C-alpha cells in the first residue's frame, strides 16, 4: 500500500461529491483527506483526494471516476509527482505566560499569528501534515484550545495543465 493523491475535475453539481466518494467506499478504500474547491476554471471543482492503496486499484478507481457524468478528468499521482501542502490553525488561550518563547517557536516553525485578542490567539501554519503535527506537539505546553487542519491541496509536476484538457473537451 502506497500513498496516492488523486485529482478530479468536475462540474459543481449537487450530488457529485457523493458519486465520487462511492467509487472509493465501494472498494473499501478509506479517504485520508479530501479537499474540494473551485478550480482555475469558473464552475469547475477541483478535488484533491489522498488515499493509501495499490496502483492497480487506483488505476481502476481513476477510470471509474472519469466515467461519472459531470467529471471531466481524474488523475493520480505518487508522492514525488506533486507539490502539496496543508493549512493548520491553532487556537491558544492568551495569558501572560505566553512570553518570548512562543514567538521564537512561531518564527522557527515558519508559522504566523493571524489574530490576537485578550482571550486567545490564532496561529497559522502551512506545510506538510507531519510538520503541522510537530507544531501542535510543541504548542501543547501552552494549551491548545482548538487545532484544525485542512485537507491536502496539491499541484502536479506534469506538463499538461487542466485548462488544456478542458479546451480539448470543448472542441
Amino acid at each position: 500500500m502506497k500513498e496516492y493523491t488523486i485529482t478530479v475535475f468536475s462540474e459543481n453539481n449537487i450530488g457529485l461529491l457523493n458519486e465520487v466518494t462511492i467509487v472509493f467506499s465501494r472498494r473499501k478504500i478509506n479517504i485520508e483527506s479530501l479537499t474540494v474547491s473551485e478550480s482555475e476554471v469558473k464552475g469547475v471543482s477541483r478535488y484533491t483526494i489522498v488515499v493509501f492503496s495499490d496502483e492497480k486499484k487506483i488505476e481502476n478507481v481513476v477510470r471509474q471516476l472519469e466515467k461519472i457524468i459531470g467529471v471531466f478528468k481524474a488523475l493520480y499521482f505518487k508522492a514525488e509527482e506533486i507539490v502539496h501542502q496543508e493549512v493548520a490553525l491553532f487556537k491558544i488561550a492568551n495569558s501572560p505566560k505566553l512570553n518570548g518563547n512562543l514567538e521564537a517557536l512561531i518564527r522557527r516553525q515558519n508559522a504566523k499569528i493571524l489574530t490576537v485578542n485578550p482571550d486567545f490567539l490564532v496561529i497559522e501554519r502551512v506545510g506538510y501534515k507531519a510538520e503541522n503535527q510537530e507544531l501542535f506537539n510543541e504548542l501543547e505546553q501552552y494549551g491548545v484550545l482548538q487545532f484544525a487542519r485542512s485537507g491536502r491541496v496539491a499541484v502536479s509536476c506534469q506538463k499538461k495543465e487542466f485548462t488544456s484538457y478542458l479546451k480539448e473537451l470543448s472542441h
Partner: protein
Amino acid sequence: METAAKAENIKEMNNTGETLSGAEILVRSLIQEGVDTMFGYIGGAIMPVYDALYDYQKELKHYMSRHEQGATHSAQAYARLTKKPGVCFTTSGPGATNLLTGLADAYLDSTPMVVITGQVPSGLLGSDAFQETNMVGLSMPVTKWNFQITKVEEIAEVMAKAFYIARTGRPGPVLIDITKDAQVQKAEYKYERCKGIRSYQPVPKLNMDEILAAAELINSAKKPMILAGQGILLSGAEQELMEFAEKIQTPVACTLLGLSSFPTDHPLYVGMLGMHGNYGPNMNTNQCDVLIAIGMRFDDRVTGDTSKYAKQAKIVHIDIDRSEHNKNISVDVPVLADAKQALTELNKVVSGSEREEWMQSFKDYYQLEYEKVIEKQTHSSRERINMAEVIDCLSEKTNGEAVLCTDVGQHQMTSARYYKFKNPNTQVTSGGLGTMGFGMPAAIGAQIADPNATVVSVSGDGGFQMTIQELAVIRQYKLPVKSIVLNNSFLGMVRQWQDLFFEQRFSYTEMDNPDFVKIVEGYGIKAKRVSKREELQDAIQEMIDFPGAFFLEVVVETESNVLPMIAPGAAVSEMRLE
C-alpha cells in the same frame, strides 16, 4: 402518410410559448424523444403525470405492471429489442425502491432506460414525509446518471439529457426523480434535444494507431480466437463481426449476453464462453495466441481464475468504455471504440487464411463434450425429462427463431447452451446481476416490442414465483407470450453447488411448489403440465401453435447438473466435463 401526420403532430407539440403543467411537459418530452410505449405503476406522488398521460393515450401506450420490479424488467427487454430506452414510471417510496433491482440489472447489462419516479413535494424533502425515500442517493451506484427535478423549468432540459445519456456511448439506466409540486407547476414549454454534455464523451474518437496495432497482432496470429460480447448487439455490428471473422478465418465464441450476435449455425461459431459454456472455447482460451475480445468485459464468470487466464495469448480488447480496459484482465492492445466502428476499420486492414488444425481442435473438444454431456442430456435415458431435452426440442420447433427470455439458474444456462440462436438480439437474459424473476416480465416487454415474434420465457420454479404476478399483464393486454417453467422442485443451480461443493448438504433449496397450472389458469391463461418424455414434443408444438398466451410446466429431473462447468476459482482450462 401516418408517419408524416405523426411527425407533424410532434412538431406541433414542440411549439413554443405554450404554458403547460410540469406533468404535461414531461409527457410531451417523452413523445419528443420518440417514446410510444412505457411501463409502470401509479401511486400518490406520480398522480399528476398519470393524469396527463390520460390525455395522450393515442401517442403513449402505458402498460401497467403488477409490481414495479416487473415493470423494469419489461422495460429492459423492450429496450434490448428496440434499442430505444425503456421507460418506466413509478411513485415515490416503495414504488421507487422496488425499481432498484431492475436498475442494478440494467446497469450491469448496459441496458438503456429512463426511469421516472414521483417524489414528495419539494418543501417536504428531508422531512421523512409519507412515502419519501432518497431515490437519488439510493440509485446513485446503479444508474449511469440521476437527477432530482424540483422546479418545473428544469423538466424539458433534464429529460433531454436523460435520454441522451441513456442511449449514447455504453448505454445504461437513468433515474429522474420529480417532486409532486414540479409536476403541477406551470411553465412555458420548449423542447430541445440534447446534443452533447461537456463532461461526457459517449463516442470515443477512434485512434488509428490502436487499430493498426490490433491488426498487426491479428494478421500475424496462428491461433486467434474472437470473443463476442453484447457490445456487438448494442452497436449493431453483427454483419461487421461476420465479415471480420470470415476475413481472418477465426473461430467466434460468445459471452452469455453476446449470444445471438453470431449465428450458431455458422462454421466459425464455436459456442459459449464461461462457467457453463462450451468446452472448446474455454479450453482453447488457454491455447490461443491472440484473443480478440469485442464488446465484453471479462466478467469473472467468463475468466475463472484471472491469474491463469489466457496467459500465453496477446489480448486485443475493443470496448467503448475505457474503464473496462485492464480492469479485470491486462490487455496488450486496448482499442477504445464502438464495436461497429472498430470492426469497420479493422476489416480494411486484416486478413487470414484457413486454419484447419486450429478449427479441428474446437471440433475435437466439441466431440468430447458431445459424448460426455450433450448426448446424455438431450437423449437422456433417465426416467425424468432433462432440461436440455426441452430446450433442444424448443429450438428445433421454433427453428431457432424465437425470442428467448430466460430467468436465472440451471434453465438459463441450459437455454444458453442448447438454443440455436439464428437472429441477432433474440436472447434476453439477466447476465451481470443474475436476477431471479427476470424472465417472464422480460418476455412481456419483448412481446410488446415485437408483437409478431414468437416470444418464449423459460424460467425455473423458483424464479417464476418471484414475479408470478406479472401474469396479470399478459392477461390484461392479451399478449401471446409463451411461458415455460422447468420444474425440478429445487433451486436447481444452488442445489448443484451444494451437490458439488457443499457435500450434498441441501440447505433450504427444496421447494414445495403450488399447482402452477391452476394458478396460471386463474389468470385466464391456457396452461398445461407434462412430465412424460413422450408428451413433450406435442406439448411444445401445441404451445407454439396456440394463438394466445400459453403456459407449459415441464417436470424435470432434480438430480441433473449443468455441465460442463468451471468450478469457482478454477481456470478456464480446468473445466470439468463430469
